[in-house]
């Protein structure tokens, strides 16, 4: 079951990657305002012209 050494290492890398992503998200203010994004995505863009 030597594969476990590899899989544990891989899991650790993934978990670290996940942690890094979460910390980035927190730092960059992704969680700062949770109400507006949910509502903003509902608005359709104004069409400019048809091609």
């Amino acid at each position, binding site marked *: *079951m*030597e*594969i*476990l*050494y*590899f*899989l544990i*290492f*891989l*899991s650790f*890398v*993934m*978990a670290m*990657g*996940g942690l890094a992503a*979460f910390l*980035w*998200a927190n*730092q*960059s*203010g*992704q*969680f700062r*305002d*949770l*109400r*507006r*994004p*949910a*509502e*903003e*995505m*509902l608005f359709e*863009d*104004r*069409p*400019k*012209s*048809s*091609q």
Partner: protein
Amino acid sequence: MSQSHETLTVTYDDRSAAQFLWATLIWGVIGMLVGALAALQLAFWPANGDIPWLTFGRIRPLHTAAVIFAFAGNAIFAGMYYSLQRLCKARLWSDALTKIHFWGWQIIILVSALSLMTGHTQGKEYAEMEWTIDIAIAIVWVIMGINVFGTVAVRRVKHLYVAIWFYLASIITIAMLHIVNNLAIPVGAFKSYSIFAGVQDALVQWWYGHNAVGFLLTTPFLGLMYYYVPKCVGKPVYSYRLSILHFWSLIFIYIWAGPHHLLYTSLPEWAQSLGMVFSLALLAPSWGGMINGLLTMRGAWNRVREEPILKFFVLALTFYGMSTFEGPLLSIKSINLISHYTDWTIAHVHSGALGWVGGMIFGMTYYLAPKLFGRPLYSQRLANTHFWIATIGLLLYVSSMWTAGVTQGLMWMATTDDGLLKYPQFMETVLALKPLFWVRLLGGSLYLIGAVICLYNVYMTSRGRTVADETVAVEVERHIQARTLHERLEGHAFTLSALALVAVLIGGVAEFVPALLMETKVPTVTSVRPYTPLELEGRDIYLREGCYNCHSQSVRVYQKEEMRYGPHSKAYEFVYDHPFQWGSKRTGPDLHRVGGKYPDLWHYKHMMDPRMTSPGSIMPSYPWLLENKVDLSMLEPKVKAMKMLGVPYDPDTIADPKTAYNKQAMKIVTSLSKDGILIPTDSEIIAMIAYLQKLGTDHQAEQKEAAK
């Protein structure tokens, strides 16, 4: 910092989304048609037609690959590309990459289909494609990843909407899973051996297999759900906070669930328990998604009555909840004891696939078609009809397979008052299911008809219209100068960071693989010997014909199973199995202890026509094994590749495998000639017989040694 707005003009690439949508619907119909053929073959074995290309063992992987990668895959790309651009308020990063992605993916599908039908398979479920195609898949996937990350990097909306998080996580994880599980040593353009063996391979395979479900059939569709459901309902996500919470917990927990495919096998007990516990935990974040989706529709339930799109989304979310309850249930060891290898697994897969994935795809299709073609859907009535036909078909499918699964599982473990097996003949448990196979065929066919109706409806909507890229005026916050390091790390550096993560993982692999290979795998039991060249060739034929689709090779640690098949399978017996062939379904009996159970003549007759030895059998006939000749020139590269993977072949066998091959083949030929069968030594059936007669015999050799 002042926050003034400016108005920009953005032209979204919608033509590519439309292309992916067409691909989705066309491959969907084809994939379901292949599924219907497979279902017919189980109910009515002559539908195998004595055609190698069309036997169940080759058709079933074609069906799974088509519906997962061609149907669901293209749907993800269509829905993701359409929504991503609008959530980022930016056109896809590179038109060139988008085109390469689209055409690359379709070409891969075509080549894969041909390769599977001709028997070029790695013998690993949901990862059947051989190494050359795997490399192409990796390249196209990375190209797609660059395109998506690039679009995110140039976005004009700072906040990453939750759907985007799901897309990004899927892309990264699938890349990693695909690369690791497909690591193999090639012995030809379309033939290779997995670097992993036995129990190790089982663990890697189901780490991949379950997370292919998780990150190809779940997370991307959750992302799509978070865009299309609020859009269609006109209301924001019920709880944005919940969506973030369940995103992080879902992606973390999912990875651990793999071992629930290996309960009661020779996988170490603690790994099984870990898989079971995490699978149970997975219920919570999954239901977070379902609750969020369904409650987003609050206040709009009256519209479900009229609108087909919402009907499909309700179907999807309900079945998502059902499947993510059933999954953890099936992961409980005592339940799994009944369900494993039965049609209950099939029922579970199809409730998730037809209900959740199919429901999301069709709902999304009916939303996108009018938008892309610039006119209302051709027929609301047909879309509603589609919904009802699909739902009835799905219910027939799932309920027939639930019944079949529980019936067969209970029959296998039933004992008489004397403590003997009540149904010692495997055939009895198959015959009991035949009516249910017909019901399943009906259910699946109805679902297929629904898909055809959808394709027709979309086609009629598109008639006379060309898809135009939508040009919009977007209001964006004026670009704020990046101040802190973190703010500078956004932007294109984000792309680089993401790619760096992928690179790091690949780098990790590159370091670890040689280390693993170097490990001397000393078997704890010296009687376990490698496959001889003849047996190895037979094993390759077993893989080619897809025997693992119906036969398992792992006797569980369970007394009633040992009564049926013999001593339970031990981990050390599989150390040379590159790849492992434990299988996950018993349409036919387990084969791990079949070695020495029947005479050579029995196997000869059984492969020629299973009905000759086993009346009532639904197994296809394999008469071409009697006529085909083995390519003996491939023996040396094959043995050498195995040696590289750590299989201890002696120098004589490596230098001249043909002599060993012919010597062993001659024994079988002689034994068959005594029963009046005249057949040359290089006939494929000889190799197959040798392989089957070897299975599980190392254990007997060990017992003989111990007895001495």
